[in-house]
């Protein structure tokens, strides 16, 4: 059996009396893009920094590529690439020099020009890091993480603070890494990011994993999976039998039987000679699942 890239059993981390991570089990297979999704303060960064060897754990078993990150072994770091939430590089060096410098720390680095190409920094190669924009500096972070040609990459909120087009570019880069066969472990509080990138994801709230699976599995896991939304002209009043929720002027029906519900709704509308304005039928989104699960977690 192939060893998983990351395996956690009963991981706990407490700071004094507060418990940031309260017993997490996770398994990430080789070649997988895995997302740890959760609101700020849920324990994402604590978890990923324990995996990277930056923090100690209070309890539990942790394996990263077969190594115990608590032991801070050079052999493990030679196989890892890390993008922290905030990192610095020497700003007076050029982009190429920074990548070259870091590549030299690894036994089998990736070609520097290839790394610059992968991260879209080819044109900036000979500029000093000081002169780059915020988004470009973030790409330098990624380039530095890729310099050693790691098997496993940790990306802690890789697109926080990006504009929409920079985010799309970063996603393309991350997909490119997956295509190279790398295992990617990312944290994010963006649902669309997890949905767009991850093969599997886990939702974390208050230090506890509240759901694990593919985005499709998580969305399907709820009982009510389709949502019908519409507005009504001011004169019309919807009968209570539809069990609809009203949010200002928008009505919303959640149902497991969308065909049936729609049929009844349109039949009523035709009979009442009214119009279902802005009618939309959507699948329950990951966002709905996420908000529901993280809200439940918050009440515990």
């Amino acid at each position, binding site marked *: 059996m192939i060893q998983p890239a990351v395996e956690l059993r009963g991981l706990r981390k407490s700071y004094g009396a507060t418990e940031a991570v309260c017993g997490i089990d996770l398994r990430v297979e080789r070649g997988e893009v895995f997302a740890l999704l959760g609101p700020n303060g849920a324990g994402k960064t604590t978890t990923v920094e324990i995996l990277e060897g*930056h923090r100690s754990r209070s309890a539990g078993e942790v394996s990263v590529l077969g190594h115990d990150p608590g032991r801070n072994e050079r052999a493990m770091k030679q196989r*890892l690439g890390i993008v*922290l939430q905030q990192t*610095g590089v*020497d700003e*007076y060096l050029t982009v190429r020099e920074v990548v070259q410098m870091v590549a030299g720390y690894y036994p089998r680095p990736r070609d520097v020009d290839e790394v610059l190409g992968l991260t879209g920094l080819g044109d900036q190669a000979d500029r000093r890091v000081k002169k780059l924009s915020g988004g470009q500096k973030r790409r330098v972070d990624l380039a530095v993480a890729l310099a050693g040609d790691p098997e496993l990459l940790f990306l802690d909120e890789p697109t926080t603070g990006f504009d929409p087009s920079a985010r799309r570019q970063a996603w393309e880069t991350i997909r490119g890494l997956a295509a190279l066969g790398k295992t990617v472990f990312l944290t994010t509080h963006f649902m669309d990011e997890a949905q767009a990138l991850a093969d599997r994801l886990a939702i974390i709230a208050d230090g506890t994993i509240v759901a694990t699976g593919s985005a499709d599995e998580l969305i399907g896991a709820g009982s009510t999976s389709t949502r019908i939304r519409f507005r009504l002209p001011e004169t019309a009043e919807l009968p209570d039998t539809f069990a609809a929720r009203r949010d200002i002027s928008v009505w919303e029906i959640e149902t497991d039987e969308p065909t049936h519900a729609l049929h009844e709704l349109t039949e009523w509308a035709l009979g009442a000679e009214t119009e279902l304005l802005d009618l939309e039928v959507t699948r329950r989104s990951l966002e709905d699942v996420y908000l529901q699960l993280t809200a439940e977690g918050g009440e515990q």
Partner: protein
Amino acid sequence: MNGVSLAIRQIGYENRAFWRNPPAAFFTFAFPLIFMVIFNVLFGADAAGFFTPAIIVFGVVSATYTNLAMAVTIARDEGILKRIRGTPLPPWAYLAGRIGHAVVIGFLLVAIVAGFGALLYGVEVPWGALPAMLLVLVVSCAAFSALGLAVSGLIPNADAAPAIVNATILPVLFISNVFVQMESAPEWLGTVSHLLPVRHFANAMMDLYASGAGAGVPWKEVGVIILWGMIGVVAALRLFSWEPRR
């Protein structure tokens, strides 16, 4: 690559980054020379024999203790140290690179100040005592680098670095026969200054400048500096932090 060649490579990158900020580089070297000129104007050219070795001491302490304590604290706050910690570069090789660069700057300063003293004020470089002088300089560079790293562990954030570093070193320089001659100082102050390492570094350099080869190796002074260096290493190992503190 093994750790030693990585450390040497690291010195190269530190050095390259240093020269890319010309104003900072210029004043690193100009600062001790400005002091030297002012002291010689204030106290007359006769004092040059005192102030040349004194400013060498000041230059070495600035390049190692002051510079390392500040630069490393800033690098820590910017997350540079944490990033390095996540790579296979051995932590000691990174710090050796930092120290190595500081020592290179320190030795450049020694050469510049000694040259300045010889050319402008006719203070002869004691070539006969060169081996002893190199020993004193190497030991002092190592000790003050270790103390600088230790102090960076005590500094809470980069904004506090200049205040704390200056407050720890300037008073010591004033009571160590570097900026002010200590002949007329009260006895107790002389005793205090002899407990600290800068005084011994200054004494050694003064003796070597005054008596040349005849001075021999100032073993007592070297011993005290080594002792302080060891305190620095132990303190640095206990206090040093790779994570930004907030």
